[in-house]
């Protein structure tokens, strides 16, 4: 079955232009489509939560597979709604607490898995010899040594910048932290630079949508 309909394309295209108009100034058309957007998004979430989560993970196991204890999940969910009452609203904290607890408990494994390899990856030899480089490497041992030294210097200086529990009065400390700050700016510039292309790609995709799918040009 088709995923597209001319009427839908028209609404989509006019909405696109309306949302774009914000860059000129806020206006009535923008406001209208902003509200339509938020409404559709909420409707879609209702649909998605039911079909993607509640029905397969809760309703079907409970009612068709005989896993009746899933009813307790409804109880847990219902406790959130006590927030609207003065008398019972403390109970919402039971469910909130459970969610927070689960998230907290996972943090051990997550921290280990994300950061241990990065710690290990920071063990860089400051003096590299030819046999330490992978075969066929184009970098010279001296070049790699310099890279590695720079790598370690940046890690140390940036981490130093983020020490909070003492004043950066000591001259060496001040210089290190200042280097860290400058390195951060360099890194942020690199991120900014690599983002521009992504944003342009999105705009081009939209202009192409307007030109090709709506107006049939190209």
């Amino acid at each position, binding site marked *: 079955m088709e995923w597209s309909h001319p009427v839908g394309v028209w609404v989509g295209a006019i909405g696109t232009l309306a949302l774009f108009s914000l860059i000129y100034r806020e206006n009535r058309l923008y406001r209208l489509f902003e509200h339509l957007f938020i409404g559709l998004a909420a409707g879609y979430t209702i649909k*998605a939560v039911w079909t993607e989560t509640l029905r397969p993970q809760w309703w079907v196991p409970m009612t068709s597979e005989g896993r009746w204890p899933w009813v307790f999940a409804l109880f847990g969910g219902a406790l959130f709604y006590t927030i609207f009452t003065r008398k019972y609203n403390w109970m919402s904290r039971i469910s909130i607490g459970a969610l927070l607890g689960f998230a907290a408990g996972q943090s051990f494994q*997550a921290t280990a*898995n994300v950061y241990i390899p*990065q710690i290990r990856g920071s063990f860089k030899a400051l003096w590299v010899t030819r046999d330490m480089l992978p075969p066929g490497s184009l970098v010279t041992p001296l070049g790699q040594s310099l890279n590695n030294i720079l790598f370690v210097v940046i890690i140390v200086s940036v981490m130093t910048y983020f020490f909070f529990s003492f004043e950066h009065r000591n001259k060496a400390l001040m210089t290190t932290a200042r280097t860290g700050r400058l390195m951060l700016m360099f890194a942020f510039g690199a991120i900014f630079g*690599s983002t521009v*292309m992504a944003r342009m790609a999105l*705009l*081009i995709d939209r202009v192409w949508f307007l030109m090709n799918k709506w107006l049939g040009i190209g």
Partner: protein
Amino acid sequence: MSNPLQRLESIDRRILYAVLLIIVVVGLLVPIPLPLAVGPQARGVYEAIENADPGKIVIVSTLWSASTQGENSPQTRVILQHLMRKRLRFALIAFGDPQSTTLAQELAEELARENSYEYGKDWINWGFRADIAGTLKGLVKDINETIKTDSIKKRPLSEYPVMQGIHNVKDVGVIAEVSASGNYVSWLGLVVGSTNAPFCYAPTSVMAPELYTYLDSGQMKGMLFGIKGAAEYERLLGIRGFTTRAITPVSLSLVLLFVLIGLGNYGMYAAKKRDQKGANG
């Protein structure tokens, strides 16, 4: 008093926007062929798929929505094209936004028709999962128990020939995620340590810089750097698609930015000189 050069310091934002729009429209209409170098990151993804064990299944995870389709859709497309060319089995799974499963499925269906890939035999859609951590932990243990049913026909996974001999993440040949968010942390944290399958990533170019650290540490085997990565991949596959066309206006708009930054700085310099003159005189 007001020298036109000094006004370059503060051009009205709306003029900037109008110029950008014109450049994009013209760039799309008049394609200018530009050279493109294939980087080692894209090659890493290509080689991971090229060398994948045909007995195993490839997981293509998607975490993107229409908002980033400008980059993520071409990336998903080239990866699927490559998988189908190699006739590798693959499973789609989606996180983050429920629509990511629909969008990926739409692409897969389109390409499957072209490549006579049969649903259930050559590929399968595991569907969308809201709980990333729970699902990924489950995949490591038992795929059938975690996914239960596919998302198109809603039948148990074990009924599909494509799932023959696939039990857990050790039976996976390559894991590739096309993503608009930082979900790689979950994959690295919960899955990659438990399997030998190479892990490849196709992020938006925004996210790409933060991934070099994982490429460097070897946790990731390859990466498609936004739309440029997709264009490089098209080149590796020998295809000329929309991506190859779009890369021209992308370049032009960046050139515009260079010009604007130059003008802004020149204007600032001119204004400063005037101020100094004013102070001296």
